């Protein structure tokens, strides 16, 4: 690039520091290298201004912003996670229910057979016994003598 002796004046002028603005402006209008240099300086200044702009996040944008961060930090959710969570909770509920049942009922009850506690007869001469038949039927057996039937 061809440099003009007005180059420093152009730099000061664009920075608004000092010099004779009218004279510099008049020179730039007539000097092609200074006009090109001024254009370059202007592009650099605009670029710096753009880079210097601070990004601001409004309240409305904050949830989306945080969600974006969360997505990058957390591993992707596994498929069927909801099903297994539900299954786990249901199993836990079943265990608690069985425990409650056990506590409330005093545990599984032993299956008890029929028992004959007592027996008697008022028939004269008759006797009574009890036994358990082979099929498990409790039986009360009255033996009545022929002459004992009233």
């Amino acid at each position, binding site marked *: 690039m061809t440099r003009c002796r007005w180059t420093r004046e152009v730099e000061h002028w664009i920075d608004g520091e000092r010099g004779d603005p009218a004279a510099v402006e008049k020179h730039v209008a007539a000097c092609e290298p200074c006009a090109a240099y001024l254009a370059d300086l202007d592009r650099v200044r605009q670029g710096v201004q753009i880079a210097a702009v601070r990004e601001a996040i409004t309240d409305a944008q904050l949830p989306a912003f945080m969600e974006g961060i969360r997505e990058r930090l957390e591993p992707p959710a596994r498929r069927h996670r909801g099903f297994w969570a539900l299954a786990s909770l249901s199993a836990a509920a079943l265990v608690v*229910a069985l425990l409650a049942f056990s506590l*409330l009922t005093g545990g599984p*009850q032993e299956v008890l057979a*029929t028992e004959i506690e007592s027996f008697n007869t*008022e028939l004269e001469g008759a006797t009574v016994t009890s036994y358990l038949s082979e099929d498990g*039927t409790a039986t009360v057996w009255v033996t009545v003598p022929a002459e004992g039937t009233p």
Partner: protein
Amino acid sequence: MNLIALLIAAATLIAAPGDKEAKTVTVRMVAVHASSTGQKTKQFGSGTEEVRSALSDLNFDTYKLVKSATANAPYGKETQIPIDATYTLYVTPVSKDAGYRIKVEVRIAMPDRRSGGKSVNAVTTTAVVAQNSKFKLRGLPLDQGELVVVLSVKE
């Protein structure tokens, strides 16, 4: 949602049948006339099917239904079930134990001709009966055979 299911399950368990005392007991009676008539195989009359297993230990060859009946018997109250012209069954449910067995007092009464027809207890027994099981009273004379009364009780 799971918490609600848990609460429902707990409420169901708390309201388990064992905690509620039913006020009546269903008594099922099948009275059979057992006799020996010279049959080569045991003959069971109509209506005795439900008690055949309970009769399996008897050495008679012919079984005929005398009467079958179902009655609701309140706890603490004697319920009368006529068997035939001679015998009458009386059942009094007393209580239910922790094993769901029902304690019953049972008697079969008959008139005593020698005392002017006054009722006499031919047999009296107290039994603790498992639900869905049967027990029987046998040996009372009936028409050249004997009376067999098969009973079951349940709430």
